[in-house]
């Protein structure tokens, strides 16, 4: 596969591995957070950690829109399907996310909910067109990458005059989450997070561009390297971060220049701005309430807003108290430090956000790395 296989080359990996080893100063340690689950996934799936020196440690951030979806939001989707009788369309990722009462969308489907997996927001629209007698709700999740397709679907529904299509909008914003990690009072509670730099989002950045990260680099004096999701991209980004740290620099660099510009996709940005507006606050699983971190549908499109159309209000549900996700997402603890890891909390029965999708820190460690716990 062109532009994919080349970026997974094992020979080049050995070279970059050597380069990182040489660049890393043995006397110090490097803690980098990859914000995105895509990077976490690449690190786990390709075994990138095995190619890093011991003093370079990756911290898995909160960057998976499935993992951060709070219980209360999934509860809303389940109520729509079970109580309001709507046909709920959703991406496959959300089906196993735990909700209240030991439910999940998968289990709600087993209880008779008409819950359908779609590949695209456009497919949800097709379901609505094909079933005019049913109310169809698209349960929309995702970061900036996934938001523009939802905006397109809403605009098309308006153009088509559809009366049976609406969206339960759970789109969230990455910069706000990064801010929270760096700023929130919990950071103090768990002690200073040793964060030496960030690997910046790949596909989010294709939309928003590299420019938004410049604030973090400046404000918090942290280097940021935007990187692709292939394993060589990740290694190169790590090398670039090590060098910035060594040189005392803190700027935004773009390793993913083949797809990311400073400005991003302005057409997509405008579409999003037309259809959505900021929520004052939004709850993230594992991060609690994050101000201005989510989007809602503008009044002009209220008829396509499932929160307006159906009587389902958001009710916050506390995370399991034994769950250490908050600390893990900030790099203070590792999955293995959680008492529930691999016992009560497994990929089959996830308790916390980090065990939900294969991109969560706990799930990735369980699925790909737990052999290391026995070495």
């Amino acid at each position, binding site marked *: 596969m062109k532009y994919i296989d080349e970026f997974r080359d094992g020979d080049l990996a050995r070279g970059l591995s050597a380069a990182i080893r040489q660049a890393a100063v043995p006397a110090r340690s490097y803690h980098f957070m990859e914000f995105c689950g895509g990077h976490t996934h690449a690190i786990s799936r390709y*075994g990138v950690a095995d190619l890093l020196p011991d003093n370079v440690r990756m911290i898995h951030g909160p960057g998976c829109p499935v993992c951060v979806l709070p219980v209360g939001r999934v509860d809303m989707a389940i109520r729509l399907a079970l109580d309001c009788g709507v046909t709920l369309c959703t991406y496959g990722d959300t089906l196993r996310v735990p909700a209240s009462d030991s439910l999940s969308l998968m289990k709600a489907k087993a209880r008779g909910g008409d819950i359908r997996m779609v590949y695209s927001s456009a497919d949800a629209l097709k379901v609505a067109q094909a079933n005019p007698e049913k109310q169809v709700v698209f349960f929309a999740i995702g970061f900036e990458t996934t938001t523009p397709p939802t905006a397109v679907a809403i605009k098309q529904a308006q153009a088509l005059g559809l009366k049976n299509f609406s969206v339960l909008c759970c789109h969230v914003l990455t910069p706000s989450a990064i801010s929270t990690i760096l700023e929130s009072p919990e950071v103090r509670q768990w002690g200073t997070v040793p964060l030496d730099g960030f690997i910046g989002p790949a596909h989010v950045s294709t939309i928003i561009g590299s420019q938004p990260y410049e604030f973090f680099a400046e404000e918090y004096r942290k280097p940021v390297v935007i990187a692709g999701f292939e394993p060589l991209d990740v290694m190169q980004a790590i090398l670039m971060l090590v060098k910035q740290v060594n040189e005392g620099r803190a700027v935004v660099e773009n390793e993913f220049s083949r797809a990311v510009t400073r400005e991003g996709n302005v057409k997509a940005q405008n579409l999003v701005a037309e259809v959505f507006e900021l929520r004052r606050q939004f709850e993230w699983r594992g991060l609690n309430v994050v101000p201005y971190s989510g989007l809602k549908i503008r009044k002009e499109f209220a008829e396509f807003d499932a929160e307006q159309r159906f009587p389902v209000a958001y009710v916050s549900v506390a995370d399991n108290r034994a769950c250490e996700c908050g600390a893990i997402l900030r790099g203070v603890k590792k999955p293995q430090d959680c008492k529930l890891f691999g016992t009560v909390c497994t990929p089959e029965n996830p308790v916390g956000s980090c065990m939900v999708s294969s991109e969560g820190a706990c799930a990735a460690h369980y699925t*790909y790395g737990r052999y290391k716990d026995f070495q």
Partner: protein
Amino acid sequence: MSEVKRGYVRPLDIRHGRIDLSHGSGGRAMAQLIEELFAAAFDNEFLRQGNDGATLPVPAGGRLVMAADAHVVSPLFFPGGDIGCLSVHGTINDVAVMGAKPLWLSASFILEEGFPLADLKRIVESMASAAKDAGVPIVTGDTKVVEQGKGDGVFITTTGVGVVPDGRELSGDRARPGDAILVSGTLGDHGMAIMAERESLGFSAPIESDTAALHGLIEALLASGADVRVLRDPTRGGLATTLNEIARQSKVGMMLQEKSLPVNPEVAAACEFLGLDPLYVANEGKLVVIVAPEDAEQALAALRAHPLGARAAAVGTVHEDPHHFVQMTTAFGGKRIVDWLTGEQLPRIC
């Protein structure tokens, strides 16, 4: 009254007819369906006995093997096959991986009211020709009809009986440290051929199911004299799940080499697109072979000499591991676990 009239029954209208509840009632409509469709297609000396069960000769020596599979695939017809031939191959393979020569099959049908007789005929004929090609007759069976909305066209459960020659010992608990792990060909073709047919995923790819009866390939492998420890067909859950099962049964660990895994490029591309891993995608005509280290080459040669094993590959080795992990050295140079399948193989966006 003429001879023609007596007991004359209008033949089934295969072109336009559909299954209705009377075809499962036990009465004349059912008898006619069985006679004109099933018995006609599967015809063999055992079925011709016409009883509730088939009487069969006892094999001389060896041990019997019995295996069963329910088949519920959707869509019923897919590139490379259909539920009919699949239901024959699937059970023959479960018998054959025990080292047995498959002898007979039973076939039970659960038909949904409204199912077109023309589709049923196509499926039954596909089963008949798969059974004939494999040399394994369908000797007994059953037909039930369920109301519309309580089935999915047709479900077919087959059970197979075979015989293992004396002295041949194959079992999932016989893998030993040092053994080589082989696969008989490319991974994930069946599962991805099915997914490509699902309209909801909206992609197309020149991928065909690998559905095939493996007893010929297995006989060729065993005839090579290689000391084969375990055979298994990596169906649902794919190679990853099958190896985890064997690792647990044999109480060993395994290490795969990602580079050696044969995967068709279209399958690899579709997996990338849907966020799936070919290690977890189903196969219906592939064999996992665990063989003594010294016989690995010989076994691989025997597999490759057979048309169904042309792309066979050595993909890993068995080692000691009290935790029975299946691991993999990635093509990239790292190491990771290859775990059991969690939940379902669902396409994902993240």
